[in-house]
């Protein structure tokens, strides 16, 4: 009677031993290293050489750890997994023509990517989020991609988080999100992409904090689509600066309404070539009510108009903000749009006039 638990334990240990030596076994933690070999089990003692081999050997909800600096190749992820290159380790993926760097295609997956350098050598997307519950990109550097730094087109209830990451100098859009992908950016640098810096298509709910969207060659942020769902968008403590076209171009229509709240941020010196009539923020919805509220935010020195609500389906609320030195009119409300000010805003040295259209005081409560 006493010996039976011991026997059970022995049998369990033997079973475990069989599993770990089996070629199809996976582990809760796998490893890659510059000296690894993909014929190995991707264990700490016998690491693999590529992300692709290690992912295949990793448990669902397990971890893949990079042991030392090297390139580890493109990879497709179809399960929950965390890929971590600790600080001090360079883990690179060079993305060649016709390829994407990391493809996340995991219908029930929660995927985290930490500390990767993804560099385009003719490839399409640095990170391509096809489907999944959540994708979290932390401490990554995504550069030189041919089409997108990050592309997220997952459908259903999906979350994209990008933190402490640079998406720069891609030959296309920095971060492209389409559909019902709840998007959170924190401390993200979106610089020098040849397309739009951030592109939110089809009514994406997003929050951008502590980030910079500088000197992209189309719009800083492009927000568009014709949707039924309410759209909630915030930008806080961020800078949208020196983009070749508009700071924020928002031809978004939502039947159930949409609001963009911009706080403690700067929208400065966009569209200096005045390719369009607006430099800072532009809205022209065709239905519903879509509005932008600016709080403690600076709209300065943009190439044409500062802020424009160009339809009866748009409104602007200006509170404690600064609209100065824009090339044409500072605050424009046209074609039946609504403009509200708290009476505490600074407008001066806008090119043609400080404001135009129907702008009414908004009393505090």
């Amino acid at each position, binding site marked *: 009677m006493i010996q039976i638990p011991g026997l059970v334990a022995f049998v369990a240990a033997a079973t475990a031993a069989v599993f770990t030596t089996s070629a199809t076994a996976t582990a809760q933690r796998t490893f890659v290293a*510059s000296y690894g070999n993909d014929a190995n089990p991707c264990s700490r003692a016998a690491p693999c050489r590529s992300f692709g081999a290690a992912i295949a050997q990793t448990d669902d909800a397990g971890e893949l750890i990079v042991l*030392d*600096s*090297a*390139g580890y190749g493109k990879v497709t992820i179809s399960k929950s997994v965390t890929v971590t*290159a600790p*600080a*001090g*380790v*360079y883990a*690179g993926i*060079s993305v060649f023509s016709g390829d994407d760097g990391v493809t996340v295609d995991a219908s029930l997956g929660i995927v985290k990517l930490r*500390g990767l*350098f993804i*560099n*385009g*050598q003719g490839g399409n997307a640095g990170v391509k989020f096809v489907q999944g519950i959540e994708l979290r990109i932390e401490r990554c*550097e995504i*550069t*030189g991609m041919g089409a997108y730094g990050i592309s997220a087109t997952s459908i259903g209830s999906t979350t994209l988080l990008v933190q402490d990451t*640079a998406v*720069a*100098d891609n030959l296309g859009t920095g971060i492209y999100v389409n559909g019902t992908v709840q998007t959170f950016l924190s401390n993200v*640098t979106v*610089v*020098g992409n040849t397309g739009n810096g951030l592109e939110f298509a089809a009514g994406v709910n997003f929050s951008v904090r502590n980030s*910079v969207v*500088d*000197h992209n060659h189309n719009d800083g942020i492009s927000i568009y689509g014709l949707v039924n769902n309410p759209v909630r968008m915030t930008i806080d*403590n961020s*800078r949208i*600066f*020196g983009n070749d076209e508009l700071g924020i171009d928002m031809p978004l229509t939502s039947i159930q309404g949409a609001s963009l709240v911009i706080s*403690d941020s*700067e929208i*400065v*010196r966009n569209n*200096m070539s005045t390719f369009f009539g607006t430099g800072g923020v532009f809205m022209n919805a065709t239905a519903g009510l879509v509005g932008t509220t600016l709080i*403690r935010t*600076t709209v*300065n*020195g943009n190439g044409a108009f500062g802020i424009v609500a160009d339809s009866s389906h748009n409104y602007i609320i*200006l509170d*404690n903000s*600064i609209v*100065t*030195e824009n090339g044409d009119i500072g605050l424009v409300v046209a074609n039946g749009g609504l403009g509200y*000010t708290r*009476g*505490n*805003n*600074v*407008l*001066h*040295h806008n090119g043609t006039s*400080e*404001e135009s259209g129907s702008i009414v005081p908004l009393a505090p409560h």
Partner: protein
Amino acid sequence: MKAANRIRLPLLTLVCVIVVTASDAEATAQRTFVASNGMDLGPCSLAQPCRTFGAAIAQTNDRGEVIVLDSAGYGGVSIAKSVTIAAPGGVYAGISVFAGDGITIDAPGAVVLLRGLTINGLGGDYGVRFVQGAELRIESCNVSGMFVAAVDAHLDGGAMLSVRDSSMSANSQGAWLHGAGHASFDRVRFNGNSNKAILIEGMLDVASANIEVDGSEAGIGVTAGAVDTSVTVSRSRFAATCGGGLSIGGGATVISAMVTDTEFTQNGCSAGGVLVSSSGPAAARASLTRSTFSGSTDRTVGTAGASAVAYLDNLVFTGNPSVGFSISAAGGPIYTRLNNTVQGTSISANVLPYSAR
């Protein structure tokens, strides 16, 4: 004997292939490596890293990467293509600059990223000198002890400089910017530079957030150039400078500065917080919002020259003893929203109210 020969042949062939590849001077790779135990005669591969940045750059593809494998000095380098040089956090990659430049970037259209480098001047003039190119990004770098400037950037034709998470200390100038281009600074510390933290000469636009300047001769200096200049400063601190936090010297072209959510403290011996001056016909303007000025021993906000003006909105002035006026509209008017808190700070004439909207 015959059996033994058969075994040797494949091995011999393999060795030959490796030797041929390694000695091919023309080939470049999308990613090269340097290491403390590297050799510059090698291909700069992961298995055979090089010893210096100079050798590795030559073996790297356009738009490729040079990766530092372990802590060491890797020498100055001249860059004439688009490339990334990166030392991951935890690895020290040093460049000692005995003369001239640490890193020179000189190629039309080049896009360069420098990440994780420590550049130390030992008689050298410039830490990083951007002679020409499309874009330079500097991340997580420390540049100190340079005789002329930590970073000297000629940003002509709309070229761009982006610096973040870096420090420039104990140089003459911190960042010295020239030409009709763009620059941005985020989370950059400037400590104890003997001249300006950032000197801007005729730039299109410069934006900085979360920068910290202390102990330098002055914070940001702006002089009028061939094109109008825009300077945006937010969420930053200027402390213990002699020449003030922000000094604008206008003349031929318009200079405008926006300052928000910034702290100016313990500045002064020639200027305290923000000094706007213009010697010529073009306007020089500073709009100051939600910022604090404390403990300055010279003008906290001053104008000099008829076309120099300043706007005060939601500011706090406290304990700013000054020879003459602390808020000093000696040039053009200083406009106030009448929503500022002023204590221990003297105010000159020509400070006029303006209306909010």
